[in-house]
């Protein structure tokens, strides 16, 4: 199928095409889902390499499931977030058992800001956000990242975390309050005074 036509298809249609041997469907689907999965897992684990492993494992499960995908039951992206979430939970538990918190291994996002100084401030802001997120309990962190960074709706988050919509609202509200507190002390460091 021509690439232009493929680009208009939704994730599920691409998955069905992949299962039916379309050579381009996998590439397009991977380019749609991988940035979201790496971003999500990266913010949950605060480790870029681990996040990429999780994203790859999630995609591998998707490829294996493709021929048996039951359409209409769940969105492909929601399913992928849920798998990534479960894999992240396993990793975090493993870390807790090993007692190795890799908080200082926060990945610094690449910045193409106009000036070096501005770039550093922006990177610092992102690093501060990641550090603050890492200080939240796991469920709150997941809910906040999915709601405010990944931009998902509450019902979608409820499906991913397998909880009710009201519980999602409560998690995001508490998560945001805790983030605000964690960031309050870093206000000056983040450069907001400078910007205002």
């Amino acid at each position, binding site marked *: 199928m021509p690439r232009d036509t493929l680009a208009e298809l939704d994730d599920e249609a691409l998955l069905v095409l992949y299962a039916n041997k379309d050579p381009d469907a996998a*590439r397009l689907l*991977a380019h749609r889902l*991988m*940035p979201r999965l*790496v971003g999500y897992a990266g913010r949950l684990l605060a480790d870029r390499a681990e996040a990429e492993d999780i*994203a*790859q494992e999630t995609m591998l499960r998707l490829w294996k499931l493709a021929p048996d995908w039951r359409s209409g039951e769940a969105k492909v992206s929601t399913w992928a977030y849920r798998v990534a979430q479960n894999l992240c939970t396993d990793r975090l538990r493993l870390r807790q058992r090993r007692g190795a918190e890799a908080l200082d291994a926060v990945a610094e996002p690449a910045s193409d800001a106009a000036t070096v100084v501005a770039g550093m401030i922006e990177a610092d802001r*992102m690093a501060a956000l990641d550090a603050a997120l890492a200080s939240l309990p796991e469920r709150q962190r997941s809910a906040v990242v999915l709601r*405010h960074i990944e931009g998902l709706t509450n019902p979608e988050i409820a499906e991913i975390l397998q909880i009710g919509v009201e519980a999602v609202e409560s998690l995001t509200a508490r998560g945001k309050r805790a983030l605000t507190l964690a960031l*309050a002390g870093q206000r000056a460091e983040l450069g907001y005074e400078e910007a205002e």
Partner: protein
Amino acid sequence: MMDDLDALFAQAKAKPMAPSAAVMARVLADAAAHQPQGQAWPAADARPKLGLFAQFAGFFGGAGALAGMASAAMAGLFIGYVQPSSLDLVTGAGAASASLEQVELLPDLSAFLTEE
């Protein structure tokens, strides 16, 4: 402070973590390795193709029935050529004793049609 947080979220949203080229290559290699091979959907007619003899035998109800019919046909040909004398007794019995002159295939209805 909430506005700052929203600004941070917006900033994080605007700069998604791009997956490295290495991991994308691994993901696509996985996809190629696990992509279903061969016919994805079963062919519309998945029955095995039958040979000409099998189709012919099938028409008559299988090879056994065909063998029975072939035996009967051979027996008929054999009897026709050999003309056994005992058979002559059976087939010639009626014809030899009485000659048949007229066969009334449509019965005469005139007896029923006469008025009293």
